[in-house]
């Protein structure tokens, strides 16, 4: 008997004396509970209205998609039993699989799917593309729906099964009819877990309870595809904003799984034999140096190239991730490395020898005369703060004037949307990062677009028809070879006109108690597979 047990015993006696009863258990005795610390607070629970990753990660427990990506980023059937596409590529007919049931006991019908697609397609980039060419989307019968398009859309299944937010989750028709710009108020899905609404304390706890009606697919689970067999009666998401607290809680066994351990704390966790630490997501993240193409000095391609010429990704990655080179690499691409269609053509301008002198010379040629660069640096996001400090140093080294705006992410989020000149509430550059799963191809990678002010383009509004031509070719591509060729064109053009600057590719860890087995890597935590032994 350890000291804590003794103290508890004494305390229990006191409690009995004081309250006259034993403490009530929170959950049924013997229930299998998983305590998980997610990357962020689950502040809302509508995967279409709120597009944060943490909302998607929780939503995958409650709702399902028609298709799901496997670890090769190939869409596999999930709620769909099959699909047929007409020879002209214009008419898609989908069948739903048997046994699909919502948590309120109602079967999943084609009408639910049609309404869900309708809501999603108002908010998602690929959904909007589909909506723009949609002639008809109707339920044929309870298990069949038909989608008629004005032009072929080869990426249909990818759009319906992608992990990039917002995902096309299927909800009951009455809920899916909610305005996509308003939040849903009922959380009824057909996934393996039910949302325990009564236990939800935003900022503290979100809980999910097993749905006994759920019938998983028979195929083995593979990322977002296959059989979603959850081995827990209840999954509790315990929100811990302080990494040191989460680290201590994992070490003491108060939690089972921590999604995003701070790199600085990983050595401590690795020394603990009761804890396993491994790479969370092989697709990692891409650091981003976003330039404003609308105003001086970055509206001049020579100035952009000067920064590109001197930028050392190694400096950025050491500042963000540290000295463990297993966690990061340089990257001459706007796309995620390691995928079948990856291309870093033209990327040597970022990964080759660096030249501060060359950058100074190019700045002089560009006629740069000391206009300040307004750098928006979010101090409340550790990777962005680190990148911002490296950037300030880089720009000063090459002779640029830096207006360093130290602020928080909320303010950066608002100010980066401004198209005003930097001195009138606008900006010159800011940092962010892109999830590797989103940046694997142009599908969900709005940051790689270069449609200028009128779009499609992300903040900074780069304008390069060659990039857009490559993106259009990717959407029309019918084979991986064609996709790779299109991505090569996009990358070459992006590097040439310096649409934005990748600051490196980096991965992060996840950590869990060693009695938890079956955890696999992926762009989001998969709850099918893990079990306690």
């Amino acid at each position: 008997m350890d000291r804590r047990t003794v103290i508890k015993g004494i305390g229990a006696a006191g409690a009995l004396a004081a309250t006259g009863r034993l403490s009530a258990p929170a959950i049924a005795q013997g229930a299998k509970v998983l305590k998980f610390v997610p990357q962020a607070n689950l502040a809302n629970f509508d995967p279409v209205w709120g597009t944060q990753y943490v909302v998607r990660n929780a939503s995958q427990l409650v709702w399902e998609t028609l298709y799901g990506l496997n670890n090769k980023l190939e869409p596999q059937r999930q709620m769909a039993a099959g699909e047929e596409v007409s020879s002209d590529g214009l008419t898609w007919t989908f069948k739903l699989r048997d046994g699909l049931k919502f948590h309120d006991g109602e079967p999943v019908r084609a009408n639910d799917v049609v309404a869900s697609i309708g809501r999603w397609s108002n908010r998602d980039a690929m959904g909007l593309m589909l909506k723009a060419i949609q002639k008809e989307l109707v339920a044929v019968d309870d298990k069949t729906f038909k989608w008629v398009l004005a032009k072929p859309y080869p990426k249909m299944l990818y759009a319906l099964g992608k992990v990039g937010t917002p995902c096309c989750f299927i909800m009951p028709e009455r809920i899916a009819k909610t305005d996509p710009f308003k939040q849903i108020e009922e959380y009824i899905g057909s996934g393996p877990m039910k949302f325990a609404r009564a236990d939800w304390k935003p900022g503290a706890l979100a809980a999910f309870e097993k749905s006994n009606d759920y019938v998983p697919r028979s195929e083995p689970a593979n990322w977002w595809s296959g059989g979603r067999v959850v081995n827990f009666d209840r999954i509790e998401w315990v929100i811990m904003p302080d990494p040191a607290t989460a680290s201590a809680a994992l070490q003491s066994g108060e939690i089972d799984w921590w999604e995003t351990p701070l790199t600085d704390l990983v050595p401590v966790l690795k020394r603990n034999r009761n804890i396993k630490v491994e790479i969370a997501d092989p697709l990692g993240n891409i650091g981003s140096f976003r330039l404003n193409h609308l105003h001086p000095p970055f509206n001049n391609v020579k100035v952009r190239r000067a920064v590109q010429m001197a930028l050392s990704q190694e400096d950025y990655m050491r500042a963000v991730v540290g000295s463990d080179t297993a966690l990061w690499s340089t990257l001459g691409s706007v796309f995620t490395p390691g995928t079948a269609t990856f291309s870093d053509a033209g990327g040597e301008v970022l990964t080759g020898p660096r030249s501060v002198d060359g950058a100074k010379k190019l700045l002089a040629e560009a006629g740069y005369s000391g206009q300040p660069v307004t750098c928006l640096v979010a101090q409340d996001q550790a990777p962005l703060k680190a990148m911002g400090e490296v950037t300030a140093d880089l720009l000063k080294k090459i002779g640029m004037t830096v207006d360093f705006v130290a602020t928080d992410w909320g303010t950066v989020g608002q100010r980066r949307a401004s198209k005003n000149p930097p001195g009138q509430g606008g900006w010159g550059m800011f940092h962010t990062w892109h999830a590797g799963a989103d940046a694997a191809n142009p599908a969900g990678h709005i940051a790689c677009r270069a449609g200028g002010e009128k779009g499609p383009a992300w903040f900074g509004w780069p304008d390069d028809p060659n990039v857009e031509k490559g993106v259009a070719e990717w959407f029309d591509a019918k084979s991986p070879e064609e996709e790779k060729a299109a991505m090569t064109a996009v990358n070459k053009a992006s590097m040439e006109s310096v649409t934005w600057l990748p600051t490196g590719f980096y991965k992060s860890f996840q950590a869990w108690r060693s009695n938890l087995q079956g955890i696999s890597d992926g762009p989001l935590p998969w709850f099918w597979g893990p079990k306690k032994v």
Partner: protein
Amino acid sequence: MLGYIVRRVLATIPVMAIVALFVFSLLYIAPGDPAVVIAGDQASLEDIERIRQGLGLDRPFVVRFAEWSLQVARGDLGKSMFTGLPVTELIAQRLEPTLSLMVVTLLLAIVVAVPIGVVAAWRAGGWLDRGFMAFAVAGFSVPVFVVGYLLAYVFALELDWLPVQGYTPISRGLWPWLENLILPAIALGFVYIALIARITRATMLEVLSQDYIRTARAKGLGENAILFLHALKNAAVPIVTVIGIGVALLIGGAVVTESVFAIPGLGRLTIDAIVRRDYPVIQGIVLMFSFIYVLVNLVVDLIYTVLDPRIRY
């Protein structure tokens, strides 16, 4: 007395109105946009605008303030822009952990600090006094989160005596409730103990030099009776004042302590709301804390009449 209490309670209404206007104005001019946070990275400017309209953020300041004020007057603090849950529900969810932490800290601080201050004054200039005052200086100097991490490391991780984090409602038993509060209360109470101990010592030193204390000693009264019955009672008014003022210190400290020990209280709710620019939640919490602070001051004023019969309202 009853009339005084009623007048003081009524006086909170204009105070709350000024606080409400101040907070609303401050949030209005502060940078940041909840619609941007909600919309996410992939959203277009049109999407953000539609969300802003949906939240009513496109309307003029006066309209928004008037609408919110009417809501508050009806006892409705509105809904969180992010969770969609009523602010009153969010506050109710978080009230118990924060109040528990504050009450336990307050009791701990008074039980520890007052005797320390009394003994330090009694033995002024001696090693006991110096030792206590050195402790008080440390209490002022070491930040709450450092004390919190040290306590968690020693008593939770190394000794495994207490849990690292979390909160258990008192409805599940006294010990499970207290178990989660011991370390946070010590961490949060450290600076509070230092404050009360120092003020107790200073006040007691003044009282102990009074003629009636000398008289008490001359007539042979025991030291304990002199210190705790005669001296402490007369020194109590400034001590109670500092305890009241210190509630604001506790509220601020609770924000940090709740983060360090992952206690789902109002402090964390406040931080989350500020980071996301969840205006209704921020406004609701500030109003509530203002109300609590005004009430605490009222209670302190009433305690004066108990401690010093000369004080009448």
